[in-house]
């Protein structure tokens, strides 16, 4: 196969791991079907990665994806024709698959590996552990390719021009927000629109603010509904989001525009002339929606969504999301693929291309394709707490339903306690 980076050629890659893996696995003639969420550009990047797997093992990989991959994987597993390996971004969906017995546990060894090799390893193990059909918890998934969500994007030149500094604390961020308004500008671009998924960007806000106002344990309880949705802690976080989003002066277009502006369109305000806003809270993927030719790190940059100075005990929490690989059909090839994901090379090859972050400490940071990627990677590695996107962990009806809708209602004018109560009710209904 065509390998993007010739083995042995570039020192930033850990070629040794590739050679070692190659020695341990010879599965010539076997095939491996992978079903994943990546399409378009991401798919090309991923193909470059698994080319190394094929090269090493001789396994022919068939990758496919689908716009309706959630639906597709449900149908395929239910009907009994699953792929060998599925890679999914939704822990909730994975939990369901696990509980219906469609997944194969990855074993203690893998669990240990994660604990040892991933930054904030326990967070990842917790994330990937689900209850199986038998009711016993086990590690079913392997996190691979992470997105950092706790990022605020801005245009450095605009900051320079206006004389603003990157805020280091949440208090500073709020002050900056007010400052911009005072200067006659609009600080934020917030867009929640996403067709059928409208509302999800708001959940990221709330989760980020949860992690900054509450302990990770509270966050976990919230996600599992061990504290009700309308708990004061949650309502507080929602209101905190409201402080930004429900103020006509703070957001481009006013509060009314928040719900209906497409999240893909909203960062464009940063680059308008005159700028429609100065700040945009969004995950690491967003540069693909910046105007063509925008160079991250120069034309646009990001900073870590700062924590409250008043709550030092919470440290530097990072909200993120990511995809998890799991074995849906236990074959030597699929086992080998999980093993492959444990090699640095599996991470470095993608790191060297772009848009890939990993908490894998064994992967060479220098392999990141550019500065901003590296910076994000460092945020991930430096995190004291890593929490997965809460809405993805909640049951689908909540995390991809009531929570979204609730947020829309919230920016539309409903009060935080009302909204939270409504979501809790929905949650009660599915128990």
């Amino acid at each position, binding site marked *: 196969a065509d390998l993007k980076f010739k083995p042995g050629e570039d020192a930033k890659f850990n070629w040794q791991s590739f050679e070692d893996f190659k020695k341990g696995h010879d599965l010539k003639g076997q095939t491996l079907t992978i079903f994943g969420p990546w399409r378009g550009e991401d798919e090309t990047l991923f193909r470059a990665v698994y080319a190394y797997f094929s090269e090493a093992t001789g396994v022919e990989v068939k990758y496919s*994806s689908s716009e309706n991959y959630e639906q597709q994987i449900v149908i395929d597993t239910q009907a009994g024709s699953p792929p060998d390996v599925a890679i999914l971004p939704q822990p909730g969906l994975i939990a369901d698959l696990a509980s219906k017995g469609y997944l194969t546990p990855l074993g203690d060894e893998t669990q240990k590996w994660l604990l040892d090799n991933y930054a904030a390893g326990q967070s990842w193990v917790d994330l990937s552990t689900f209850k199986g059909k038998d009711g016993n918890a086990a590690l079913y998934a392997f996190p691979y390719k992470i997105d950092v969500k706790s990022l605020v994007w801005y245009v450095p030149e605009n900051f320079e021009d206006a004389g603003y500094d990157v805020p280091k604390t949440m208090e500073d961020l709020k002050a900056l927000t007010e400052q911009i308004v005072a200067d006659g500008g609009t600080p934020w671009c917030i867009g929640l629109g996403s067709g059928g998924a409208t509302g999800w960007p708001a959940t990221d806000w709330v989760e980020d603010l949860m992690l900054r106002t509450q302990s990770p344990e509270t966050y976990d309880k919230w996600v599992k509904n061990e504290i009700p949705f309308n708990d004061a802690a949650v309502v507080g976080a929602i209101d905190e989001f409201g402080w930004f989003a429900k103020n006509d002066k703070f957001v481009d277009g006013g509060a009314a525009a928040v719900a209906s502006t497409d999240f893909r369109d909203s960062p464009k305000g940063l680059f308008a*002339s005159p700028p429609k806003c100065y700040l945009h809270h969004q995950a690491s993927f967003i540069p693909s929606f910046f105007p*063509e030719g925008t160079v991250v790190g120069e034309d646009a940059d990001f900073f870590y969504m700062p924590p409250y100075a008043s709550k030092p005990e919470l440290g530097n929490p990072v909200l993120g999301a990511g995809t998890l690989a799991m074995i849906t059909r236990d074959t030597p090839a699929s086992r080998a693929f999980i093993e492959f994901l444990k090699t640095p090379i599996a991470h470095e090859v993608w790191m060297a291309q772009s848009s890939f972050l990993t908490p894998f400490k064994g992967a060479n940071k220098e392999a990141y394709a550019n500065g901003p990627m590296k910076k994000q990677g460092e945020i991930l590695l430096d995190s004291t707490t890593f929490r997965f996107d809460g809405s993805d962990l909640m049951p689908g009806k909540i995390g991809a339903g009531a929570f979204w809708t609730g947020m829309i209602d919230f920016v539309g004018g409903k009060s935080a306690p009302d909204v939270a109560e409504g979501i809790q009710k929905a949650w009660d209904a599915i128990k």
Partner: protein
Amino acid sequence: MIATSRSPLIIVVHLSVLLLVAFWTLPTAGLLISSLRDKDQLAVSGWWTALSTSSQNLTGRAASPEAQVEKDGKFVIAGNLIEGGTSKVSAFGVRPMQPTAFEVGTTADIGDGQTLTVNEDGSYEIVSPTRIEGTRGQRIFYTASVPPRFTLDNYREVLNAEGIGASFINSLTVAIPATIIPILVAAFCAYALAWMPFPGRAILIAVIVGLLVVPLQMSLIPLLKLYNGVGAFFGVPAKTYVGIWLAHMGFGLPLAVYLLRNYMAGLPREIMESARVDGASDFDIFVKIILPLSFPALASFAIFQFLWTWNDLLVAMVFLGTGNNELVLTGRLVNLLGSRGGNWEILTASAFITIIVPLIVFFSLQRYLVRGLLAGSVKGG
């Protein structure tokens, strides 16, 4: 044809059709124009503005300091903001909040003793008494009148995508038999339901109407299970073209039978009787009389069935698979959109690329929707 074509009413007819057509095509026109526009323009200005010259606030960047030349002891960076365009600059600025601070042709002081001049044609000059530092060029905000600008890049991008040709053929391989087979099957069934007496006919018709409502999503899992079972039993792959044809047939049948039966039931009884007296069997009558006379209905249904199978993604994904060799055109195009589906420009262009085949089908089948097919056959009420 009645000789009324010159009555004043006809003008009203023309006008109302024009109005309706305008109303119906306006949104699509937006899509068409959008597909020809620059991807960054899509989200900032309405598609209708693309048709006329518009005044826009734009951001440009001067050449990087590496390009500076020393001239008369001063350091100069010169260039043009508008590459190869015909736009005209009307104002410019150097600070994002005041993008129109200066008239064209005037010289702006940009600090550190540097000055910037921008001319109407977009040419600019930065003059500095000292060497200009840094790696990035100075941002220049300017207001320009932008003439309509269209590009075929979006189409190029879609059409050059890898595997699009194969997907095209895959789509045809799915759509053509998945159109013809159900039509044949449904036509036979419809004939039986319309003209062959047997007990339970009315109930059967109603059941078929009822089946129209079965949500596709409900059938996917049980059917795929069945396919897997059958595939395993015979040792063949579960996801095959035959499988998807049958699936499309199954899902399209209720409507096909319903539409065709209704049409066939309306054919004059005497023609059938006459054929029967002529010694024709039911099979003969069906093939030689009913089929040719049902062309309008067959053509209408063919149009729709083709369209559905052509535009379908879900059924193809489930029953044909998502691998590269089976991927249908819609699947391929959706994949082009990337994982987060935000590329409006690709969406718009691919929408127009997929629409072409169904439109050809519509246009070519439309002539079978003929008038007076039955004229001259029977006399009487």
